């Protein structure tokens, strides 16, 4: 169609007006954003997720958890905001429970060896239980050992009832096991059988001896909750933290002041501080009188700062300064903590008594901001057996007094010092039954494996130790159905116990055992869940992840304080000429002392100080390395006074004291899944099987070593150096506010 002049002018006019009009309107920003041409996949997810509250015991630690479950599969673990111990937060090991559940190397069904040393053959659970009963039936009382890790809550009740009824010898195993030293110190000082809480959140000043309570010691998530408040809590001034220890740990890095003290001398240092504040009259008068038997500072004269300075490696004026800070009324409440390598010495109990007595001298016992006593638990606890007793047990295995070993996640073949040859002792036992979910070193020697659930699949309860100062019972419920043909450990014992005709078992199965405890709690008609009927109580308690009663606190009474020793205990003389370095073993931030080495997330979590992962290394001071002619990644032989050696690469750590060789624990497994086996070296293997003189606990911090070079090198895998630090001239990456 031909365009007329009139039509042209009409269209041109409309277009011009349109251009003016549209040019005046702003196009919404979101319309010009570049968008993905397709729906993002996260919008396409169908199905509903459910959250289940549960609880998990992770060694000494305890965390209340929420598990996100979708289509029957556990997807994510989060802290339970209601749980008083971790209040919504969680650590690496709790997160990695997902990997334990879906681990590719889990034992998927019961296994038996037809002939000693032969291959495993798959069997059914009925046959497995029958075989377990046959093993127990044919033996005299005391011939059978049941070894478990530290257990708490209802499963501990079941294990104890089974052991009492069947007459098996029950022993708790923890590779480090020094919590028993701290517990004994607190029992002697304050008459406490359960570990007190440390009220870090309300303390103004913390003096810590050796315990890496922000990294790996006891319950780091719980302590970290308090630490955040201690530093920058609303409505309070910033607390001051002083750390005394031989290794620059996570807690040392967080501290305002780190003091290196010779390993094993922490008790002397604490006594010197006690002497100073008693002598200067700044200590609590009643406590000072009781702790010195009424003699005052004179009773502790042997520990005067000038007298102990050379043994501790800490200048007398620094000791005096620490004493002044601790006793300063502006620093109240002050809290003193001790543990870890400071307790794992031949004089460990002396050290811990000296350390924890300081709390009495500054008036911080059973007070906010200090030690807060916990009530007795409502369920049983299986505690660590001392190294002294384990030595006897191994001797009994060799002599034939123990003919059968039942073991659940207590890896004796890996975790006891190499010199004790636990592997050899286990080999001399007629029958070994393992209830482990993974083929660890001890389970490898088993004749029968009855694999048990992982924590997300089973019923139970957990009472944190330490609790928050009042009765707290976390309820553990299955968040998912069992992924393989496994049973709950409690159910296996209850089933076998029933076959054996044992009475006084806490229930027919673990669910019933947990319900019977819930009924007891319901009848108290108090605490976090109070419901008219048990059905409602059970439902609400499971929904909340547990039951706690803030009024159920410890009995405040305590016995008269005992007098402190007036002389230090004798310890074996060290061969410091042949073995010039103190070996400071430390737990891996993820893998611990090896119990979590099978979990990839635990392995790949960088050590906070070195950023190293997946391996073992030895940390040396730059000057020490220079003297030995060593540089980073040189493979060295670390030989202990036992004559045993490990070969590990060097990591030169500028914060390592010159007289220290620090080596992480957790690696060097021969078995324990493809993620753990044949990786790094096991430092537990070269430790002296030394004991605390009084408790018999393992003095794993008391070994000396020498380090010599080889011609080999091996790069330490680590995060450090992967991303180069980019810095601008005149601009810091990390700014510091000077207080």
């Amino acid at each position: 169609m031909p365009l007329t002049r009139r039509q042209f002018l009409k269209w041109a006019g409309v277009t011009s007006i349109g251009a003016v009009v549209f040019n005046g309107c702003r196009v919404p920003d979101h319309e010009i954003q570049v968008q993905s041409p397709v729906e993002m996949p996260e919008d396409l997810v169908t199905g509903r997720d459910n959250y289940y509250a549960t609880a998990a015991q992770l060694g000494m630690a305890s965390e209340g958890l929420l598990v996100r479950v979708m289509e029957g599969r556990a997807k994510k673990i989060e802290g339970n905001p209601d749980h008083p111990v971790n209040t919504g937060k969680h650590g690496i090991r709790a997160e990695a429970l997902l990997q334990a559940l879906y681990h590719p190397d889990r034992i998927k069904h019961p296994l038996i060896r037809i002939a000693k040393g032969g291959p495993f053959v798959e069997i059914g659970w009925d046959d497995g239980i029958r075989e377990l009963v046959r093993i127990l039936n044919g033996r005299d009382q005391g011939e059978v050992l049941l070894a478990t890790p530290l257990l708490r809550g209802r499963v501990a009740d079941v294990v104890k009832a089974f052991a009492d009824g069947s007459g098996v010898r029950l022993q708790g195993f923890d590779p480090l096991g020094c919590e028993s030293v701290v517990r004994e110190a607190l029992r002697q000082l304050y008459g406490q059988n359960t570990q007190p809480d440390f009220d870090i959140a309300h303390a103004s000043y913390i003096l810590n001896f050796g315990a890496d309570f922000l990294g790996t010691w006891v319950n780091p998530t719980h302590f970290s909750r308090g630490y955040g408040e201690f530093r920058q809590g609303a409505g309070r001034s910033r607390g001051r933290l002083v750390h005394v220890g031989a290794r620059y740990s996570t807690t040392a890095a967080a501290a305002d002041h780190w003091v290196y003290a010779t390993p094993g001398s922490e008790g002397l240092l604490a006594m010197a501080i006690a002497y100073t504040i008693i002598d200067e009259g700044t200590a609590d008068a009643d406590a000072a009188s009781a702790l010195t038997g009424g003699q005052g500072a004179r009773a502790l004269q042997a520990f005067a700062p000038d007298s102990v300075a050379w043994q501790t490696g800490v200048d007398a004026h620094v000791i005096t300064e620490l004493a002044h800070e601790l006793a300063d009324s502006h620093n109240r409440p002050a809290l003193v903590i001790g543990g870890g390598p400071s307790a794992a010495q031949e004089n460990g109990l002396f050290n811990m008594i000296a350390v924890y007595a300081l709390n009495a001298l500054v008036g911080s016992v059973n007070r906010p901001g200090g030690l807060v006593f916990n009530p007795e638990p409502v369920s049983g606890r299986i505690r660590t057996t001392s190294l002294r007793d384990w030595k006897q047990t191994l001797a009994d295995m060799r002599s034939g007094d123990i003919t059968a070993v039942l073991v659940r996640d207590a890896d004796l073949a890996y975790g006891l010092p190499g010199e004790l040859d636990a592997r050899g002792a286990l080999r001399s036992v007629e029958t070994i039954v393992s209830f482990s979910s993974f083929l660890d070193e001890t389970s490898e020697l088993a004749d029968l494996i009855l694999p048990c659930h992982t924590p997300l699949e089973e019923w139970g309860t957990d009472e944190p130790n330490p609790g928050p100062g009042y009765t707290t019972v976390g309820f553990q419920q299955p968040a998912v159905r069992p992924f393989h043909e496994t049973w709950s450990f409690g159910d296996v014992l209850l089933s076998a116990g029933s076959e054996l005709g044992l009475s006084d078992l806490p229930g027919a199965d673990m669910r019933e055992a947990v319900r019977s405890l819930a009924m007891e709690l319901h009848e108290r008609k108090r605490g976090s869940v109070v419901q008219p009927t048990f059905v409602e109580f059970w439902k609400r308690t499971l929904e909340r992840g547990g039951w706690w009663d803030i009024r159920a606190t410890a009995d405040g009474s305590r016995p008269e304080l005992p007098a402190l020793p007036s002389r230090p205990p004798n310890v074996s003389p060290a061969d410091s000429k042949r073995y010039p370095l103190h070996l400071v073993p430390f737990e891996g931030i993820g893998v611990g002392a090896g119990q979590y080495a099978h979990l990839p997330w635990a392995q790949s979590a960088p050590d906070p100080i070195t950023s190293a992962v997946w391996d073992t290394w030895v940390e040396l001071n730059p000057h020490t390395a220079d003297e030995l002619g060593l540089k980073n990644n040189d493979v060295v032989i670390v030989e202990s006074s036992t004559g045993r050696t490990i070969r590990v690469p060097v990591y030169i750590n500028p914060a390592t004291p010159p007289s220290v060789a620090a080596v992480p624990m957790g690696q060097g497994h021969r078995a324990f899944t493809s993620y753990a086996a044949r990786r790094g070296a096991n430092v537990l293997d070269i430790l002296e099987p030394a004991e605390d003189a009084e408790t018999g606990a393992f003095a794993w911090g008391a070994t000396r070593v020498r380090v010599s070079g080889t011609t080999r090198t091996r790069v330490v895998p680590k995060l450090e150096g992967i991303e180069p630090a980019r810095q601008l001239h005149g601009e810091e990456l990390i700014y510091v506010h000077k207080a």
Partner: protein
Amino acid sequence: MATRTQVKNRADHKWGMVIDLDRCTGCQACVIACQSENNIPLNDQSAFLDGRAIEWIRVERYWEGDYPDIKARFLPVLCQHCDNAPCESVCPVYATYHNSEGLNVQVYNRCVGTRFCGNNCPYHARLFNYWEPVWPEDLRNQLNPDVTVRTRGIMEKCTFCIQRIRRSTRGGKQVEDQAFNPACVQACPTDAMTFGNLNNPDSRVSQKWEDERAYRVLEALGTNPSVKYLKQVDAHA
């Protein structure tokens, strides 16, 4: 480029984070929580040895001083979600862009793996998938269905857990402060990390944003990050 003010005007939410270095202990809980939530490939030993480990949030450790007066300081580093993001302008295929809520977003199926964005990021917060991520069959049960598994050859980085943001704000829902958090913030045991809506003056993150200790890393570059750090406090040692 959009500035914070412009972003503020066009959406209800402007997501931001404050990390208090005085509370951070370097414990790595944030690192592993992020890996679990966001289907990050397993970082095996060779990934670290080859310099190919993928961590959307990493904790850097810096030394200060010499023994015995030495101090380790920690800096958690994640995508800073810069308002003037240097990574966005160099992407030839618009795989990375700034969304209306102040997030620096990565469109995985648009990315062709030039790695220009990674080179241009001054925080080294962008990571390249050199290999196809592989999980053993059983471990795949844990993967988060809300998050895409990234294939070989593309870039990835922290999203502030956008899947959680989407779930909480879907349909234009107004969310209360602290109603949800990214996985790292949720896990952090010392409460060193605070996340929230900077457009809400009452939100916890807005209040910390104005703290006298607050600063941005590499501020002089003018990238205007949505992450601020609170200075560590050095008491007299």
